[in-house]
């Protein structure tokens, strides 16, 4: 999985790799004997446990982007709100951005942070998530922090442990959709979520980008990551796509699509473009206030694009479910 590049120092070969415990860099590592024994190459038993736990979850969607601040959390939150609009469906939103959890605020749950110990309590089958609505559950590390000043200064392994707990120990119950919001990049959190969900069926990833090349160049890396770990891509959303002045109604390209934007990237890489969401000050305001932009201003152009995107994702998931069934039937 890890890339080996020229000019770059060889470090840990990875605990699950062939060289584990045997390479020259392993000399002197306290874990060398453990790695060399082969014990670390066995699959983590948690993966099977997570598989069993999440077998009652129909659809799993990851929201990804190589770039930070492009609107992953905003999108995840609104996707959750939109799906939860159908009261017959059970939706959950999991925030695995351990160092910068934004979901509690966007979902209007930040004020409750002080009482986190009461909210996230241990129930019979695990941690109970926080409910925004009867059919919309949320889990984030933000609920475990006692003050908004608290920094989570954790290295990779500790973050991975938290993600494992979120998947295995949270009492998710029967769900139609589990949406996973991720931090930017292609590192520990991303590898872990894909690995831990390895024994379950993940419908796919929604990739978020902004129109500029500076953002797209990171997003291409994320797409490459998806291909490497064999994660299907549901499609790409271009966020912050143009700004319509509320006074004169003229459009400005604040983040110019100088290399053709997401449209060109999708055409080049043969990926579906799910939609382009314009910049709208009311989106940022709704997020700050913890309200759903879709119910605050349902008639705005941005809300309409959102609804269309959510529809395509739902269609994709029901198709992917049918296909999955076909495969299982054929195997039987």
């Amino acid at each position, binding site marked *: *999985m890890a890339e080996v590049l*020229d000019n770059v120092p060889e470090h840990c070969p990875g605990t699950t790799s062939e060289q584990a415990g045997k390479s020259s860099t392993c000399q002197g590592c306290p874990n060398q004997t453990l790695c060399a024994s082969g014990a670390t190459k066995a699959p983590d038993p948690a993966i099977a446990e997570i598989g069993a736990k999440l077998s009652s979850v129909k659809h799993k969607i990851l929201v990804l982007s190589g770039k930070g601040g492009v609107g992953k959390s905003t999108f995840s939150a609104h996707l959750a709100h939109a799906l939860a609009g159908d009261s017959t469906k059970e939706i959950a939103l999991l925030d695995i951005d351990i*160092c910068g959890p934004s979901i509690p605020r966007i979902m209007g749950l*930040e004020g409750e942070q002080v009482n986190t110990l009461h909210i996230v309590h241990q129930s019979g089958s695990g941690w109970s998530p926080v409910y925004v609505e009867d059919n919309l559950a949320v889990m984030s590390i933000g609920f475990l922090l006692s003050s908004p000043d608290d920094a989570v200064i*954790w290295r990779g392994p500790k973050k991975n442990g938290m993600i494992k707990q979120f998947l295995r120990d949270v009492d998710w119950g029967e769900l139609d959709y589990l949406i996973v919001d991720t931090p930017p990049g292609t590192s520990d959190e991303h590898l872990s979520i894909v690995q831990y969900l390895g024994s379950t069926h993940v419908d796919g990833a929604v990739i978020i980008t902004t129109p500029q090349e500076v953002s797209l160049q990171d997003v291409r*890396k994320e797409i*490459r990551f998806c291909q490497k770990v064999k994660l299907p891509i549901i499609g790409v959303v271009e966020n912050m796509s143009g700004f319509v002045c509320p006074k004169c109604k003229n459009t400005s390209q*604040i983040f110019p699509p100088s290399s053709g934007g997401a449209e060109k990237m999708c055409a080049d890489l043969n990926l579906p473009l799910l939609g382009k969401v314009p910049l709208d000050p009311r989106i940022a305001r709704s997020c700050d206030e913890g309200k759903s932009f879709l119910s605050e201003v349902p008639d705005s152009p941005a809300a309409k694009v959102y609804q269309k995107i959510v529809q395509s994702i739902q269609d994709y998931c029901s198709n992917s479910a049918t296909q999955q069934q076909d495969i299982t039937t054929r195997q039987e």
Partner: protein
Amino acid sequence: MSVQNLEENNGDGNLSQVRHVVLILSGKGGVGKSTITTQLALALTHAGNKVGILDTDLCGPSIPRMLSVGRPDVHQCDSGWVPVYTDSRKNLALMSIGFLLADPDEAVVWRGPKKTALIGQFVSDVAWGELDVLLVDTPPGTSDEHLAILENLKKHRVDGAVLVTTPQAVSTGDVRREITFCKKTGVRVLGVIENMSGFVCPHCSECSNIFSKGGGEELAKLTGSVFLGCVPLDPQLSSSIEEGKDFAELFPDSTTFSAISSISHTILNSLQTT
């Protein structure tokens, strides 16, 4: 973490001729850390300083594109890797992981320990030579990269950190945590910059606060930090960044440039007075 103990090591090496080291931090991604880093660097070089940029965002290096240096080969000399100079007078030096990747679309799928190792090299093995200021651009968060940067830089010296945020509460909330990180690790906060602060419509001059307004200043007050100033959303800045052009040279009279330039003066003053 024992960063204090490391200070006693005298392995200054390649950083011995670097006068000031400033980290550009933000808990939040996409708030403009790299943009602010490049613009501060350009403003400082235009004011006659020798500046270096160390791009430590391993998973998403943006600076090479923003400075339009492409993907040159990085050469080795006796004292380490030679940084890439963006100008003929060698006033702006840059080192980024972007230079080491064979394919620009390739994902750097690395877990923490590997990132920590490379950052250790980056920090100690680049032959910066004489610099007035070294700006260290960081990825979002408070994790492996940040700890590695501090552990390695503390051997030399870190003058402080500049925190970048956008005005909305969703962003200042994350940056507040980053300030706690600075306090815990003993890094002085030089100040807070509010980026993407308001957008003036080029057609009718109406100012829209797309990402709200005033959050950066409020955060500075709340945490007892210096507020360095606001940088507005400016399509001319975004396109300069996209094309890797020198915004300071193209639009020296713009309000955006005067904001950046005044922030760079404040930072420089605060570095020189301590």
